[in-house]
């Protein structure tokens, strides 16, 4: 089965249709809304598989289908679909994970009153996300990008009656919008410079040699190549959406949304959109690599941001106690990994990690959702514990996810994708700092995941809710199991020995593998680091489980200062509130004050001036002008009285006068010598 590129729009259109159905379904129509969403998603999955088949048949080609959106001046604004292995792999991943999460949601949100609306929003999200993936135009991508943000906003604020959820939704939207403005500016710049926003357009697209050559050739402020500047602006969008430093603050708050939402949007798909975006415009980002005299290369910035984020996220995750926040910061960290990979030049490694991460992070989130659901919405790991016994399936799958994330060697997909990134970082000739950051993050990741599993599943229940937890129904466990299987197997698509996925992404039809132990040193090092992380985590949390919910954290006991800083997430939120928030308020006050006290005052002053003039004028009128008029009028009236005597009231007389006058006139004219 294969899907021609012209029909690619079907993939996002089906969930959109489902969203439309969902929006019109009354609250009682639960089966219809969820059924439509799941069926649409499943069909989209099948179609995506077809698209993948098409793409794999000619992996090097960028199949496009472009069309005019609306006329603009002499030309038109054009949009289009694009099918290449990157799109196809992402589509398959999104639709597959999406389908499973949809199914999981039917169980998770079973009791919610707004069940139909939830599926409407989910479908909307899926449609936008898929649209983003198949877009062959930065504009279309941006449109879907924003719609994805809208869906995220709606879903984070799904429980809008909770003020924290409403605030988190707003925060997410505004924060990502800050990044989006960068993306918008980059897009505008790109459009202005190249006259097109199509990625591939038979040689005319912005990612093709002609346009890139032009962009690289120009320089702009600070000596940057235009392509660098545009690339960095576009990267701003990715920073916002993918929760990168310094705009990562929204992602943890976004956990206010229902857990399936966290799994789908804030772990597997939407947050990865930033990575996807950079990968998609990779030709543009890397266009300046050949330039020697520029102050900075775009990818260097990407690598730096990625490295910082990877480390930062991992550090903060160590001290969080909310099960979902730990996972959220883990996501931030892992996205930093991907950015790092992009920055160091291996976008295929980034996408490989994106795909594997999507599965195991979705697995972890759904697992945590399963736990939360079972524990009656208790999310604090300090109050959980001992769930290994009652929730076997959840525990088993969660452990698989944890091992994949931690990078337990050989069997788990996360290991292979992470290795690919570390290798790429190792091979980067600009700096090795990213590599060191990555290695540090490896230890931390293994550590905090071990902590999470140990606190949640081992020991004994530390609260009423945890002790009553029991395994969930099949509708929730089956997706977990499927995802767990994938989390294991997916790694074998891209082992160094047979890097099939990487080859296909890069457009090769044949695969050139090399022995696994070629870069054995780094490999061994990372295995050791994983072992250290797990071992220390187990040592601190597994061997002596926490006694009760209020007990001190082992690290907190030893390094209270550090732990406090980490728990407070390095104080980013406070910092922003103190700077950006203040500035914002001040700006608003300034604007309002300008209106009230400057412009309005000026208007009032003018009005007063006018009133004063009126008073003066009236005085002058009454004395000077009116007096003169009265005198004249009296005289006129007297004259008029004497003339009015001629009016007799007799019609005959008038007529007679007219006739006589006429005769006289004619006589004057005739006797006076003609006309």
């Amino acid at each position, binding site marked *: 089965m294969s899907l021609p590129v012209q029909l690619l729009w079907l993939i996002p259109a089906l969930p959109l249709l489902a969203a439309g159905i969902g929006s019109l379904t009354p609250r009682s129509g639960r089966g219809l809304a969820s059924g439509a969403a799941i069926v649409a998603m499943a069909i989209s999955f099948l179609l995506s598989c077809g698209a993948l088949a098409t793409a794999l048949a000619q992996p090097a080609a960028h199949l496009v289908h472009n069309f005019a959106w609306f006329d603009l001046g002499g030309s038109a604004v054009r949009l289009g679909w694009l099918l290449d292995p990157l799109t196809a792999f992402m589509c398959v991943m999104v639709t597959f994970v999406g389908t499973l999460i949809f199914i999981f949601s039917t169980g998770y949100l079973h009791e919610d009153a707004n069940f139909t609306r939830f599926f409407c929003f989910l479908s909307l999200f899926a449609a936008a996300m898929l649209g983003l993936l198949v877009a062959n135009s930065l504009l279309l991508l941006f449109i879907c990008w924003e719609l994805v943000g809208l869906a995220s906003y709606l879903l984070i604020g799904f429980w809008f009656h909770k003020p924290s959820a409403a605030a988190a939704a707003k925060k997410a939207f505004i924060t990502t919008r800050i990044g989006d403005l960068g993306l918008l500016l980059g897009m505008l710049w790109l459009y202005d410079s190249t006259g097109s926003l199509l990625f591939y357009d038979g040689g005319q697209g912005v990612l093709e040699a002609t346009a890139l050559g032009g962009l690289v050739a120009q320089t702009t402020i600070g000596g940057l190549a235009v392509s660098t500047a545009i690339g960095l602006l576009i990267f701003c969008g990715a920073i916002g959406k993918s929760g990168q430093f310094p705009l990562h603050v929204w992602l943890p708050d976004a956990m206010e949304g229902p857990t399936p939402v966290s799994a789908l949007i804030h772990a597997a798909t939407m947050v990865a959109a930033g990575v996807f975006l950079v990968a998609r415009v990779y030709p543009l980002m890397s266009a300046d690599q050949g330039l020697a005299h520029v102050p900075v290369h775009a990818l260097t910035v990407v690598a730096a941001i990625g490295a910082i984020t990877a480390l930062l996220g991992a550090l903060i995750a160590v001290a969080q106690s909310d099960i979902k926040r730990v996972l959220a910061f883990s996501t931030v960290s892992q996205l930093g990994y991907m950015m790092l990979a992009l920055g160091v030049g291996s976008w295929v490694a980034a996408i490989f990690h994106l795909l594997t991460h999507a599965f195991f992070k979705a697995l972890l989130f759904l697992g945590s959702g399963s736990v939360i659901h079972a524990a009656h919405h208790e999310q604090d790991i300090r109050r959980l514990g001992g769930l290994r016994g009652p929730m076997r399936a959840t525990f088993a799958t969660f452990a698989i996810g944890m091992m994949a994330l931690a990078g337990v060697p050989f069997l788990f997909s996360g290991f292979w994708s992470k290795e690919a990134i570390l290798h790429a970082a190792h091979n980067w000739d600009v700096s090795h700092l990213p590599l060191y950051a990555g290695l540090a993050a490896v230890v931390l990741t293994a550590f905090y995941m071990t902590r999470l599993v140990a606190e949640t599943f081992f020991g004994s229940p530390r609260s009423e809710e945890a002790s009553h937890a029991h395994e969930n129904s099949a509708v929730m466990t089956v997706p977990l199991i499927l995802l767990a299987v994938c989390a294991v197997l997916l790694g074998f698509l891209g082992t160094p020995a047979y890097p099939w996925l990487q080859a296909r992404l890069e457009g090769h039809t044949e695969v050139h593998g090399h022995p696994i132990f070629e870069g054995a040193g780094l490999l061994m090092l990372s295995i050791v680091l994983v072992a250290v992380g797990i071992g220390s985590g187990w040592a601190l949390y597994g061997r002596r489980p926490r006694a009760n919910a209020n007990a001190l954290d082992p690290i907190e006991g030893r390094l209270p200062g550090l732990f406090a800083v980490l728990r407070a997430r390095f104080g980013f939120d406070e910092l922003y509130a103190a700077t950006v928030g203040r500035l914002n308020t001040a700006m608003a006050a300034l604007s309002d004050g300008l209106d009230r006290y400057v412009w309005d005052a000026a208007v009032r002053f003018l009005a007063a001036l006018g009133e004063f003039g009126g008073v003066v004028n009236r005085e002058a009128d009454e004395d000077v002008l009116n007096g003169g008029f009265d005198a004249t009028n009296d005289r006129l009236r007297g004259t008029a009285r004497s003339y009015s005597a001629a009016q007799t009231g007799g019609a*005959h007389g008038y007529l*007679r006068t007219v*006739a*006589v006058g*006429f*005769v006289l006139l*004619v*006589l004057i004219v*005739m006797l006076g010598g003609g006309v």
Partner: protein
Amino acid sequence: MTGLLIIALVTLVPAAVAMALRNVIHSALLLILSWAGIAAFYFWAGAEFLAFSQVLVYVGAISMVVLFAVLLTRHTRTDGGVAPDTLGRALAGLLIGGAVLGVLFGAVLSTPLPIGSKPAAAVTVHGLGVELMERHTIALLVVGVLLTVALLGAVVLAASDSRSGPEDAR
């Protein structure tokens, strides 16, 4: 030329007699004849449509209104004798009218007019309609409004008082 003379006769004589008669009804009827003569003049001049319009309006409508007015105002207070100033006024009227006539005749006769002997290109009804609806649309509309207003005004003026029914409006 004969036709014109006959028409002049039919027009002028009844008009003159009508102005002289004491019986207003007879005057009105004679005037109708005079108007018909004018219609004949129009016909003679080739303005066929105008001739019919003249008949329709003057003979059919205005004359009716006149007769009605005469009948409604029969019992005038001074129906009896001749008012004292009548003779003087009549003389003055004749005098002034005669003067106007003389002046007009003089003016007409002393003016050399072109001998326009070219036969009238009869204006067809269709052509007239086209003219009316295209070049003179606004005038047509104004006349329509004028007639409506005049009708309403006449009804209001002639209606005796508010109590009587609508048929009194006539």
